[in-house]
């Protein structure tokens, strides 16, 4: 119930903001015509508005949401992936991938040693595969030999 209502309210806000912004588009070069850049967005805003009101009025029963601990785990994984993205270029592919995959395996319940080996193994194999077989260059980062 509550989940659908929140989504409905968010989508209604989105529809209003999106539609309002569409109505503020500057007039295109060469004067306005019967249809412009705002026509389609306005149509979408109206449809989204009606659908989200329906969701607020008639929500479905909620699915079970995970407890705090699992939510923390999920947040941890998302942050881990973001850190991976940020470190990829500066640290290089092999190091950041080893870290990301190992920590992820460990969080999913594997023991530390096999996790580390999976991380290192997948990092090295994919690095070699991409750089030498597929010829797509992944960042070498601080491991650059030259």
């Amino acid at each position, binding site marked *: 119930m509550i989940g659908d209502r929140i989504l409905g309210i968010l989508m209604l806000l989105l529809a209003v903001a999106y539609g309002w912004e569409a109505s503020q588009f500057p007039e295109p070069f060469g004067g306005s015509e019967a249809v412009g850049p705002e026509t389609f967005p306005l149509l979408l805003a109206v449809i989204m508005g009606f*659908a*989200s009101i329906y969701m607020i009025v008639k929500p479905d029963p909620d699915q079970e949401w995970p407890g705090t601990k699992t939510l923390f785990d999920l947040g941890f994984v*998302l942050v881990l992936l973001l850190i991976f993205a940020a470190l*990829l270029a500066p640290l290089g592919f092999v190091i950041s991938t080893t870290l990301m995959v190992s920590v992820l395996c460990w969080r999913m319940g594997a023991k530390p040693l096999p996790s580390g080996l999976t991380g290192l193994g997948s990092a090295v194999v994919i690095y070699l595969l*991409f750089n030498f077989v597929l010829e797509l260059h992944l960042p070498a980062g601080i491991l650059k030999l030259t």
Partner: protein
Amino acid sequence: METMNFLLQGFAVALTPEHLMFAAIGAMLGTLIGALPGLGPANGVAILIPLAFSLGLSPAASMIMLTSVYAGAMYGGRISSILLNIPGDEPAMMTTLDGYPMAVKGKAAEALAISAIASFIGSLLATIGLIILAPILARFALHFGPAEYFALFSLAFATLGGVTGKNQVKTVVAAALGLMISTVGVDITTGNQRYTYNILELYEGVDFIIAIVGLFAVSELLFFIERHISEGAASATLNKLNLKMSDILHILPTSLRGSVLGFISGVLPGAGASLGSFISYSLEKRIVGAKGYFGEGDPRGVAAPEAGNNAAANGALVPMLTLGVPGSGTTAVLLAMLISLNVQPGPMLFTQNAELVWGVIAALLVGNLMLLVLNIPMVGVFVKLLSIPPKYLMPVVTLIAAVGIYSISNSALDLYFMVGFGLMGYLLRKLEVPLVPVILGMLLGPEMERSLRHALTISDGDWSILFSSGLSIGIWSVAILGLALPYILGPLLRRRMENARARMEVEEEAD
């Protein structure tokens, strides 16, 4: 005759050594992806798109590889349905009804072989159907004007939930969300900036490949973590195959009937593979009647839904190729591939890119034959894959998805977007909002807007042009029917499918 010529040309494309290799790689990877726990066909194709893209494969090679992946994943998916009674996706549900009892009786190898043969027949017949039907439909679609196209795109969204769809309003929300995302960027017609907030990266819009990978692959990882699935399935054992010619002949009529039904439901908007396998199974049960032992491991109970399922999957390519309107998640992902290769699907595809289309169609035939040959001797290897623990598998799959995205433009921003879409996909799935309409909205948005504008420019702003021809009124009626029908038929069909499964489980406990 013309069609035969094109088909021969298609074989000339498909049978080059390079393309044969891509078909084989695709078939192998697809079966692998299908057999691995937690990776459906749409997911598998999604992960491979960025790779095909950044490797700079030609459109024909990419499409041949990805359609083989698609076919392979359907083959691979049934391994867990039969051996473990865990259907990989909804259409596979009917296969467990007789497949698992066969496995319990120690006939797992036969069940797998029968399902492979039935799938092959289903795909083969459906590809032939595609060859006959697609050019006709494409020629017919040349009569469509912008108003008809706008109606057709609406129809695609309206029927996407399928007859078994649960909450149609959520499909509408998802579609609107996807379409909204598609309007981000510089407007093609006027050059106006829309929703870019002066962020340079947004000028070209949001890349739907990133969205697809995030929505499918990353949200899948989050689901695995939420459910604490970390151990693999207990290793399943496989008996020695003992299949006689008479067994194959025994399931032949069933497979043929299932294929025809499956193909029809694949082509029809909104019916899809679930309905295909369900109808094939139910009809077969009715025809064979008391002579069969359905639900207790009748081989025909495996053959019917498998033939229907695969025929429907190939049938779904008909509207995708001829109209540019996909009817299922996986065909939507294939459409994404085509669009990102700058190939515009639709009726002109058959004239402008004849070589590509017929090459892909021929590759479907070749790929299916390859899969049949590959699957029967190698099924033992794939069975072993079932026991790979997800705690090692999912991180590596996520890595491959991320590397694929990164290799498109070497930008960390794309990865942030991917993670963002992953979170969005997780939340939407938790609220039972379907993801496919979001993706389809992003894909079809630009084309849909263009046809709306085109139509309204012709009529000088008069909206009634959208409902002015008989053809467009017809399409609109089907669209409305597609939105309304699930409310009437949906609960009924779902209940029947669930009842059939529940009955089986009760009987199993009684044994």
